């Protein structure tokens, strides 16, 4: 009996050593093992990392990122991760901390270099001030966490991810940097239009757009006889038709998008974040929609469709179901196509 148990212990120790040694030698040359909490970060990581990284994503794009089950299979993904990319701002508070706790992986624990909070460089909006209690529902206390709905923020996230990659693999820093620049350039061109980016430069356009000075700048400048305002293309050009349009959203999930593209949010189906509204709030909302001429109601597929539909019908506006993350609806397969799909859906709905 004693011999048997000694043998078992010896064999398991050998196996353990072999497995860990094997894992350590493999780690040096193998692609970086990157796990992303959400598809947006997964796709950007693929774009920047190329064949130097292997990316797995936890939540699928059709899921509500606030509510993901911390399944044991995700623990296994994180156990082997070199880097873990998260949205941060407590969007994933219900599921990322228990996953990290169970993964027993020092490389990705909170505060380790492998734990990459993608909100790090983001100018956060809608940060609550004063006392906040749960009586107000799910107020994200660090501000609105849905920053990926502004394509310009995608460029900042690319910066964060590329820095984390280069830190983990200094030898490949130039590779990551070149791919990051290409990605950022692609976003600029898709946002402002290729011609305008070539005329003005992406950096300057980004700065002007963030400062809210893009329109006056374009109106005041001209190139080869034509006002620059006529050169605005891309998603911003496409969305010009909707500038100032009043819209109603289900949740405050598109605040960054609305700010970037000049949509005026007239109200939310949710009275308080995460809490289903009562009939009096909805009746008031519909009344306001009729009064203000709201152009559309936007929701996500995971929310209660019946209530959104009823609000849209009663308020006399079309209902648009938008993805919240990459992969959240048909065709939104990467971060750029996500905005193609969203801007298409919005312009189509209002054009009707």
């Amino acid at each position, binding site marked *: 009996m004693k011999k048997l148990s000694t043998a078992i212990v010896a064999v398991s120790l050998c196996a353990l050593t072999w497995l860990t040694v094997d894992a350590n030698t493999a780690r040096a040359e193998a692609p970086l093992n990157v796990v992303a909490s959400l598809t947006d970060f997964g796709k950007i990581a693929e774009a920047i990392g190329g064949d130097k990284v292997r990316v797995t994503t936890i939540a699928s794009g059709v899921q509500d990122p606030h509510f993901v089950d911390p399944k044991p299979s995700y623990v296994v993904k994180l156990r082997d991760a070199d880097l873990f990319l998260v949205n941060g701002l407590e969007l994933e508070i219900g599921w990322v901390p228990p996953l990290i706790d169970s993964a027993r992986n020092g490389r990705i624990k909170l505060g380790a270099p492998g734990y990459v909070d993608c909100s790090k460089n983001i100018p956060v909006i809608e940060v609550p001030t004063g006392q906040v209690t749960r009586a107000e529902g799910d107020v994200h206390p660090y501000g609105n966490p849905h920053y990926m709905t502004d394509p310009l923020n995608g460029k900042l996230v690319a910066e964060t991810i590329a820095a984390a990659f280069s830190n983990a693999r200094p030898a490949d820093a130039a590779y990551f940097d070149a791919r990051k620049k290409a990605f950022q350039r692609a976003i600029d061109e898709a946002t402002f239009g290729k011609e305008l980016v070539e005329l003005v430069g992406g950096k300057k356009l980004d700065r002007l757009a963030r400062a809210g000075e893009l329109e006056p700048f374009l109106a005041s400048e001209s190139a080869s006889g034509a006002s620059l305002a006529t050169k605005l293309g891309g998603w911003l050009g496409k969305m010009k038709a909707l500038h100032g349009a009043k819209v109603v959203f289900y949740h405050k999930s598109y605040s960054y998008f609305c700010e970037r593209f000049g949509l005026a949010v007239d109200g939310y189906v949710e009275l308080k974040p995460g809490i289903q509204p009562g009939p009096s709030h909805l009746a008031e909302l519909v009344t306001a929609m009729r009064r203000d001429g709201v152009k559309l109601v936007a929701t996500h597929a995971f929310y209660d469709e019946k209530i959104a539909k009823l609000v849209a019908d*009663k308020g006399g506006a079309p209902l648009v179901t938008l993805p919240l993350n990459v992969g959240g609806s048909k065709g939104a397969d990467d971060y750029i196509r996500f905005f193609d799909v969203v801007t298409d859906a919005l312009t189509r709905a209002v054009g009707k």
Partner: protein
Amino acid sequence: MRRIRFFAWCLGMLALTAEGRAEDFVPAAPVPPPAATSDAASPSPTVEPVATPQDQKALEGEFAAALARDKHEPEPAPSAAPRPGAALSLLDLSFDLLGAGGGSSASEHEQQSLEAGGHDPKLRGFTIQNVELTFAGVVDPYLRGDANIVLQINPLGESTIELEEAYLTTLDLPFNLQVKAGQFFGAFGRLNATHPHTWDFVDAPVVNSRLLGGDGFRNPGAQLSWLTPLPFFTELTASVHNSQGETAASFRSTPGDVVAGRTLIDRSVRSMGDLVYLVRLRTSFDLGDEVTLVPGLSALFGPNATGLDTHSEIYGADLYMKWKPLRNDQGWPFVAWQSEGIYRRYQAAAVFDKVGLADTRKTLDDWGVYSQLVWGFARPWNFGVRYDYARGEHDAFTLAGVGYDSASDPLRDQRHRISGVLTYYPSEFSKIRLQYNFDHAQFLSAHDAHSIYAQAEILFGAHGAHKF
């Protein structure tokens, strides 16, 4: 219809109280939400020319009807503080109150055995099942600490305070290892290590309170767990604990207590073999994106105090299966099926009375199972059913020729229980529940018992981690 109207009224009140408070964060939003422009104190119509008060009332009615079937809860809201560059997180505190009210057709005396769990309602009337203070925090780069202090009011009306758990957990051991040490619940099966406010039913399964003890198996000790490098989730856990006290009911337990006609003696620890050892294997598989399977096996070994050299062994098998569509509305709908079977071999020493040998040394086989299905059919409602079966061996022993007497030893009785439960979650931090139990047991004078309990829970403080 009346119920729908009541709901509508409740919702209206909810919205009414809501509007008086601070709006959601919108400092940077281009246009304030409409509620801010209307009279905050009144849910009834504003001054729009478009809608008359009648219109608004009619609209409210329509929304009320549409809402009556599916209502909602808040998403997790963490402890609130603005983000001044960095927030120092030192201590997470939370408070949970769990209470029940109801009664049984069995007498109050019988109810104490019918509901044998330490947090079960044992009285007609009200029970403060569990008041729990939770402390959690990261100690340093290597350790985190957790503690739960439990307060209760026992059936005699006295307040009790208990150090339920207080332990450290390592954060950064190599080889995917983790150590836990202190006072904590043993990782036996699925239910044992969980707290009553996370349960799907008002009371504990019969087999758990019988074989692992009314409060579950927990004792000071140390645990090592290993997340294996296998491609699917496989975790091996081993722990060693003290073997005495009421939280080690199948082991040395409390001297003077009677188990199977044997009075427990004051047996001391003479070697490592007199401690309790636990091993557990837990794995998990995903069947597609929407179904997850978590099977587990557990075992406990340790001394019992019917004699100086008697031992107990407990074996358990458990299975958890959950279906939840990817596109779910804040967690709904889902179906979760959980079952556990627990088997105990209990060596009972020979027992003597005034006349002489009353019973020889015996090994008693006691076992039981429960299986429960919880269906989250519409947010925020869950419906659950559970079947319980448990039996203790009593044919094998006779005391002074009398044989087993279920009335004096109800915890060895053969029992069936069927339970149904309906739970409503106003938010993730509160719940209201109604449960019905049908019990069939030999020790009951009527053999059958019908019980109904309502339960309520509130939790405030830090957002606890979700377990799977």
